[in-house]
């Protein structure tokens, strides 16, 4: 195991005291340390939002992209250099709201990418508007009479859309979360870890207490993550009992990178660039005679 401090950097964390993002940051570092992945072997991608600042607080490769767009940038990097471990960090508004189309499309592609979503069910950084994951009736600055939309369910959507690993964690239980993130990294294929992340400022509904009273662990409830139908039904559970743990996992599916012929000889980013040979050039010109 590596020293967790390997991933520390001198940047001052700007999250509010008590924010659920701290637990996620610690869990991520701890998972990497336990798996002995060095800072230069992993690359983080995030969007914009409170949660998306996470990579900035770590010593590791990262690309803080734009709001909602971590996934496609990560995909481009993975396809250019699949030697890198790729971890995406998104907010709920970021990853499921404005980034919704990238989300449903990464599900169909199964790249070997880990996606950790900091799901606080509110827009934190922009000061408390409702999010797609906000519960129906959630009162916020832009929904003074309460949201009138069905909340977006990332877990059922992921299972429905083709994800091969779907889990939910709770940032109030960082040990359990660490295990989930480790499992996600070890999973070959796209792995979603949706994290229940209390925003202590703007979400007065889904608080630490709210979750502590409700969460239960799937692995303790005899859940079989291999069966898609069961997983999908389970993923609808919300209310008195909220499941955390691995909801769904199917192994043996080829990753996207595995299926790209052009990557058989190794990452394209690592090929030395030189002009084509005379023979290659002639063959290319030949297309036009």
């Amino acid at each position, binding site marked *: 195991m590596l020293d967790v401090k390997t991933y520390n950097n001198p940047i001052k964390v700007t999250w509010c005291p008590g924010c659920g993002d701290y637990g996620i940051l610690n869990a991520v570092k701890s998972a990497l340390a336990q798996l002995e992945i060095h800072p230069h072997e992993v690359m983080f991608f995030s969007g914009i939002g409170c949660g998306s600042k996470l*990579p900035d607080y770590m010593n590791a490769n990262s690309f*803080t992209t734009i709001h909602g767009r971590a996934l496609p940038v990560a995909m481009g*990097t993975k*396809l*250019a*250099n699949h030697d890198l471990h790729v971890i995406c960090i998104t907010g709920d508004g970021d990853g499921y709201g404005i980034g919704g189309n990238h989300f449903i499309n990464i599900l169909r592609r199964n790249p070997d990418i880990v996606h950790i979503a900091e799901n606080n069910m509110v827009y934190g950084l922009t000061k408390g508007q409702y999010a797609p994951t906000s519960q129906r009736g959630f009162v916020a600055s832009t929904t003074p009479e309460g949201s009138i939309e069905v909340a977006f369910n990332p877990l059922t959507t992921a299972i429905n859309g083709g994800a091969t690993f779907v889990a939910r964690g709770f940032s109030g239980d960082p040990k359990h979360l660490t295990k989930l993130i480790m499992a996600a990294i070890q999973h070959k294929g796209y792995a979603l870890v949706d994290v229940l992340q209390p925003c202590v400022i703007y979400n007065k509904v889904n608080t630490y207490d709210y979750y502590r009273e409700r969460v239960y662990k799937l692995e303790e409830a005899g859940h079989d993550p291999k069966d898609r139908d069961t997983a999908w039904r389970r993923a609808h559970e919300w209310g008195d009992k909220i499941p955390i743990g691995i909801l769904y996992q199917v192994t043996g599916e080829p990753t996207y990178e595995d299926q790209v012929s052009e990557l058989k000889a190794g990452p394209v980013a690592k090929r030395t660039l030189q002009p084509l040979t005379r023979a290659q050039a002639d063959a290319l010109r030949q297309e036009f*005679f």
Partner: protein
Amino acid sequence: MAKRRNDMTIRLAGEAGQGVESGGAGFAKALSHGGLHLHAFAEYMSRIRGGLNFFQIRVSDHPLWAHTEGVHMLLAFSPETMSQYGSHIVPGGALMFDDALKFDHDAITRRKAQLYSMPLTKIAQEIGGNKIMANTCGLGALAGIIEYPFEFVAGVIKQNFARKGDAVVQGNLKVAEEGYRVGRERYAASFDWKVSPLAERPDRMMINGNQALAVGAIAAGCRFMSGYPMTPASSVLEFMAAQARKHDIVVKQTEDEIAAILFAIGAGNAGARAMTATSGGGFSLMVEALGLAGMAEVPVVIVEAQRPGPSTGMPTKTEQGDLLFALFASQGEFPRIVLAPGTQEECFHTATRAFNLAEKWQCPVIVMTDFYLTTMMRLIPPAEFPIERVAIDRGELLTPEQLDRLAEPYLRYRDTPSGISPRAMPGHPKAVHQACSDEHDEYGHFEDEDSANRLMMAGKRWRKFHNIVEDLRGPTIYGPEGAKTTLMGWGSSYGAMREAVDILNARGARANLLHFVDIWPFPEAKATPLIEAARELVAVEGNQSGQFAHLVRAVTGRRPDKMVLRWDGRPLSSEYIIQRLEEAKVHA
């Protein structure tokens, strides 16, 4: 009237799906095998079957740079072609059609065009046993009428139908031969334009702008292309997809253009030369990510193949209407490079330069083309595409060995005099790499408060922008110095301007041209003296407002004396330019 040799335009026209394009391409090949020079372009509708399409071949014994508007021979596959294109036939020219089709003959003859009725279907049926060969028959007749030796037509038939088996080849050959015979017999005498093979018949490439760009990209070592289909850019993606295996290029059609450019940015930041291609609508969706590439300093090449806007506009027509949009797209100010090749040769070289510039300056490079340039074809000597000799310059990309030797901590955004920060590919133990869309410090960490840091980082990017210009080229000059009239244009209008200059000079009206490929940052030092020296400056552009003229005035203060603009979806031509020049009033 004396016969005119090796200087004519042939147009094949019909519905989508009638084989206009394949027939035209076949005939062009036959001409090319005779050593002739060609320019070919097509017009088609935004639909898959039916409608009105044409494929037009201009043939000559000297190199051609553009199409001309007048048609000498219109081979019509559908009645509508007549009403739409009849007026394009020059006096003395001819309309050839299958006698099975009904035409409004009067309308044609009123325009002093000849009517060449041919039993195409009948011959196809009787000789070939299949009316599908009517096209072949028509092409045979065409060759007969212009007295182009049959052997060249036969050669292409053998080549093109080879994989369909001998019976098909023989059938088509017989049908073409009969078409040739009948066409020649009936109409050769009355038709004034003739084509004969030249003595020299070097191999030349028949290539369009998109293909030339893609070839340039492959030559430059492009390793990643993502895109989303959009006319007229799609064929870049498609060509790259077809070549992907041979050159180990990852090619990906994404869910939309937002993802397309972001995939490319991800790949570019990871160290693969990466590009995307789209048209204006897709480019609109890429605008936010363009700024990301600017801020995070990621090399990426973006092809913007223009078509008439606004919005969906005219998907299969041409325009140069997106220039100012490309220059200023995305919030804030950051270095970007905008290049607009005018010919296939320039498409090739611009593509290779684009990748070098993108990596050297670590910024997005936009290559602007348009429908006309991307689809029009010319016959070009292969030496113009020196694929195996392109220079690949990755700029300050640190090698693993350089990184191994690194003494200080790696700073992705190190402040340097040039503005360029040496770049590490993510993955090296000595260089943890952090890129950031927020204003950041030299390391790449968020720093979106501090005023001094902002001035340092914005200053660094600003210096890049100002230094880039040293790598850019001034305009191409063609025509005599000190001309009375100077045409000024950019991108695809090169050919039309060049031919207009030749015509004007032949008439004694001393003209020259300034053609810009490198547009932004505007190569002020190189361009301004030339612009200022122009006596009568004429802006020639395929848009309604004179966008390049706007830019030139903003930078140099010089206002063109005249504007020749076109925005009806059709490409500029020498005729159009000269006609407007004569009409043009001083621009108010």
